[in-house]
């Protein structure tokens, strides 16, 4: 399964298929649920388009009446024209309003769909893809689509409609003159086709450049503390300047191409008008056509090309949105590597953990765990020790099924973790890691995270058990204190205590402590050790630790080396064995000459 590298975004590949009809097709699918709004909006648009085309015709008729001196005839045409303008107003209002609704509804759906999808993706996806990149898809790319929906798509549809309607009306009124005028259209089509080949290339560069700029900006902000302590501000500024400059250059190139459409379109428009003046004028002089029709034709020629110009102006927007659409769908198409099996059951309250012949690797070929057999009995506390990279954290990741085993199976109370729903499985297991993550919100919200329905009393009780109550109640706002991004206004130890309270409140039958005390000082550790003991009572416990103080208290200690179990036993047994454990901790245990002096 793994190894397909699904879910690594390859921007070049995405950029290559700009203007993909499949993307357009999938975008259109979003229109389904908003049919009724779309219907009303489209009706408004058609009304508006018809009126904008009718007005020149009415003006032409009026000119004829004036030429004939028929003022009553003129009055009735004016009345019709007023009515038409009013209808156009109404149509325009409906169009703007309902198509606006359509756009916003689609955006809402896209955003929430992407977010929900992200909730289903496996952790390995997040290992491979930068937070900034994913965010850019949900934010910037959706924003691009919004721009398209807000103006671009409308204008394009409107342009096409107008073009066709005018052409038909012209042909009906005066076929020969219409054909002459329309002769500029093929020229325009050819020019546009050639142009778009260049425009597309330029646009791809623009898109790539903006992605780089955003990634740099994101990292600049997130890594600012390191940057400042190493005084690399100037170097970073230079680097940013250079990607920013690339972005600028790419945009200017695109702008030149975009502006190049002006002379072409304007000249062709003028040629169309000139054709009407010369040949139409001649027809009027020959008495084959009225002045009014001539006026109407000339008014139409202008309208004819305005939308074309707009189309080319929107072209970049459309392509941009297509690329964004492709990126959005690419994200939505990433299959979660780990899914609940069809008919997966709710995990029963579990107490026993069993590894049977488990092998595992993050990337194919690089085995992290080999053939692990281990049973952790109900209520037992097992410590896992080993060198960095021995596979300690991987073991934990398999119990929670953040990753899947390559071989063998992991069971909780005899139930294969692959056969139960991920959510119910994870509710059985409380993990406290060395990197305490808090969400933006109050301390109370954070403690309540695993059990949103908990009362205030239960929150305080959990904080007390975690040993966090004392410092929390000393804060100005107590439990209402807002903790910022990653809880930066609390110290590492304080954050860890809040995380511990969070785990206590969730009350899981299995507890995993993943180097949980490594970032706190002695005093805090002492507080936490006490809390741990309370937390561990009656639960199955798995502890990953470096500190001997934590390790010695375990019922059994598992020593991992290079992904294999090297030794298992109690502290004393292992010391007596004089193996790896003794090698690691023996130095610490052997009483030194200065120990415990007064």
């Amino acid at each position, binding site marked *: 399964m793994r190894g397909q590298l699904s879910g690594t975004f390859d921007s070049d590949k995405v950029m290559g298929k700009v203007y993909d009809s499949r993307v357009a097709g999938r975008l259109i699918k979003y229109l389904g649920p908003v049919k009724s709004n779309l219907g009303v909006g489209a009706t408004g648009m058609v009304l508006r388009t018809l009126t904008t085309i009718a007005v020149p015709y009415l003006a032409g008729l*009026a000119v004829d009446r004036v030429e004939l001196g028929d003022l009553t005839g*003129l009055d009735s045409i004016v009345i019709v024209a007023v009515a038409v*303008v009013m209808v*156009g107003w109404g149509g325009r209002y409906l169009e703007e*309003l309902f198509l606006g609704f359509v756009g*916003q509804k689609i*955006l*809402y759906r896209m955003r929430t769909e992407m*977010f929900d999808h992200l*909730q289903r993706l496996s952790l390995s996806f997040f*290992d491979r893809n930068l*937070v900034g990149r*994913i*965010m850019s898809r949900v*934010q*910037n790319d959706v924003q691009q689509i919004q721009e398209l929906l807000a103006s671009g798509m409308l204008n394009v549809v409107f342009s096409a409609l107008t073009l066709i309607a005018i052409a038909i009306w012209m042909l009906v009124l005066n076929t020969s003159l219409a054909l002459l005028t329309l002769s500029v259209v093929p020229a325009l089509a050819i020019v546009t086709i050639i142009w778009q080949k260049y425009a597309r290339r330029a646009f791809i560069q623009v898109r790539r450049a903006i992605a780089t700029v955003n*990634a740099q900006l994101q990292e600049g902000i997130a*890594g600012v*503390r*390191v940057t400042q302590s*190493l005084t*690399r501000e100037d170097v970073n500024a230079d680097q*940013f300047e250079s990607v920013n*400059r690339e972005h*600028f250059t790419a945009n200017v190139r695109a*702008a*030149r191409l975009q*502006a190049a459409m*002006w*002379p072409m379109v*304007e000249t062709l428009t003028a*040629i169309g*008008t*000139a054709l009407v003046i010369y040949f139409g*004028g001649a027809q009027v002089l020959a008495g084959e056509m009225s002045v009014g029709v*001539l006026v109407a034709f000339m*008014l139409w020629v202008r309208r004819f090309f305005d939308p074309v110009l707009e189309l080319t102006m929107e072209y970049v927007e459309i392509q941009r949105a297509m690329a964004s659409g492709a990126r959005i769908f690419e994200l939505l198409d990433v299959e979660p590597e780990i899914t609940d099996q069809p008919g997966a059951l709710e995990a029963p309250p579990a107490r026993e953990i069993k590894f049977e012949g488990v092998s595992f690797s993050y990337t194919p070929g690089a085995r992290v765990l080999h053939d692990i057999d281990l049973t952790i009995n109900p209520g037992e506390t097992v410590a896992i*020790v080993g*060198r*960095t990279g021995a596979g300690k954290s991987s073991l934990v990741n398999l119990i929670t099924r953040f990753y899947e085993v390559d071989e063998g199976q992991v069971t909780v109370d005899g139930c294969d973790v692959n056969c139960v729903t991920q*959510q119910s499985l*994870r509710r059985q297991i*409380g*993990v406290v890691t060395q*990197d305490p*993550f808090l969400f933006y919100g109050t301390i109370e919200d954070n403690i309540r*995270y695993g059990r949103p329905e908990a009362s205030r009393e239960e929150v305080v009780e959990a904080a007390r058990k975690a040993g966090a109550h004392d410092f929390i109640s000393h804060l*100005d706002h107590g439990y209402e204190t807002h903790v910022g991004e990653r809880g930066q206004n609390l110290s*590492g*130890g*304080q954050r860890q205590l809040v995380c511990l309270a969070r785990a206590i409140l969730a009350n899981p039958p299995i507890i995993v402590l993943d180097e949980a005390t490594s*970032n706190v000082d*002695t005093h805090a*550790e002492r507080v936490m050790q006490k809390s741990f003991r309370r937390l561990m009572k009656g639960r199955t416990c798995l502890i990953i630790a470096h500190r*001997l*103080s934590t390790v*010695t208290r375990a019922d059994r200690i598992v020593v991992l080396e290079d992904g294999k179990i090297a030794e298992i036993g109690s502290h004393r047994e292992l010391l007596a064995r004089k193996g790896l454990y003794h090698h690691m901790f023996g130095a610490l245990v052997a009483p*030194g*000459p200065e*120990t415990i002096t007064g």
Partner: protein
Amino acid sequence: MRILLRLMGFVKRYRRRLVVALVFMLASTAFVLAIPQLISNAIDTVVAEGEQTALMWLAVAVVGAGAMRGISAFGYSYLTEVVSQRTAYDIRNALYDKLQRLSFAFHDQAQTGELMSRGTADVEAIRMFFGRGLLGMLQIAVLFVAITVLLIQANWPLALLTMAFLAAVGWRAVVVARLLRPIWLKIQQLMAVLGTILEENLTGVRVVRSFAHEQEESKKFSGQATVLYDEHIYATRKRAFNLSLMVFLVTIPIPIILWYGGRQVAAGAMTLGQLSQFIFYLIIMAMPVRRLAFITNILSRTVSGGQRILEILDTESVVQEKPGAVELSNVQGAVRFEDVSFGYDRSAPVLKNVDFNVQPGQLVALVGGLGSGKSTIAHLIPRFYDVTGGRISIDGIDIRDVTLESLRGTVGIVQQHTFLFSATIRDNIAYGTMDADMEQVVAAARAAQLHDFIESLPEGYDTWVGERGVTLSGGQRQRLAVARTLLMNPRILIMDDSTSSVDVETELLMRRALQELIKGRTTFIITHRLSIIRNADLILVLRDGEIAERGTHNELMSTDGLYREIYESQLIAGDGCDEEVS
């Protein structure tokens, strides 16, 4: 308005190009206006049953005017785009630079997602304004005035009537701009909030999964997305109403012109060609008016976006380099705190009257409980924050009198949480010392006990590490941070809990390495490792932001104080075994 004027400051440098663009714009407008004149002549020629050759010349003139209009429009649109992109480029640089330099106090409060939205969406809004907005508005004004003049020449009562409607459109546009501004401001804020929720969800993905909290997270996100949606819908309503009204106001004069103008023509007060001219001009105005709505939209977004960007650019870093600050050179490494007080905010002091003196080359251990102020002391020495009272000096020089660069080049700090940049391991180690050669990088990695691990990777030092260093374990990340700092070869070294999440064996190795590393440096260590603490020349025991006790291990053990309490508790907690054979 003030915001707009200040934003204009960014374009000032490109005023020459803007002037050229303006000339192109005026030329393009002139040619646009010439065409209806020619058409009007053509109609009059036809009505007067004139010569076909006259028509031919008029047709040729139309093509000429059209071509000229196209060329000037090219110049205008290209140049404004260059200026606007250039402005966006400048603003982005300024913003990035500012964010890099704002002190920790600012970044403690700010959220990455929110700052990102300023750096992307807001900059884009400003760019749009300087691109199509600014000169576009001017163009509309020029068109309006020119058409007024031209029409008045043809028939002044009809001209005034027509222009009255167009003036109403202009007024409406101003009203709309004012109306939409607060809405846009709110939408941008809501977008930023949504971004924060997303970012948090992504960075905290392990916690979300561990607590099986996916559904609640989705609910939170969609709830916020709904608020954003509602605000957008509100904006859409306002926009739809006003936009349609504006287009109506620009179209309704056509029947009126026909009605009144028709009578004027019949009375011989104007020609049929002139009547058509009125209609042509109105239609020419229709496009810009539609754009006017677009521009007012941009304008509101620019003002709100500009406000948010200027807010950052105006934020003065709390930590400022003094004018005439000197380079800190030939540092011996004596560090002195004189009656130092500090608080992140005024109401809650974190450090109170801290006073100590460290000789060059000494090893200082900072010991104390949660929130006792150890990390704060570490952060004050490289001036990540400024003291609120007292002074800190290095070799007798107040650190506020020296350049930040020389100060931070002297003081190396290994922080508790390490950020890894998406780059190779080598680049990450050499992050602060770009000119370091490979040997130096390897030496630093060796000293930090990281070399063997790196060599075991297939790509060695060229291995790419992810955004938060996901592929490295906590211990490896910290050792990388140690290597990074060591490469700078700082005279004063600060280690904030830095050995804590390294496993026991590595830690033993590192302790030995550290013996070498701290030699000849003034070193501050925040740690709970008694083996290190015992060797310290000075132990500062902190409690509630004050120095409770100070002295060497033996001195402190001989008094029955806090240190002894901590020491013994650690021995008990660790079954007397967290000791190193020395």
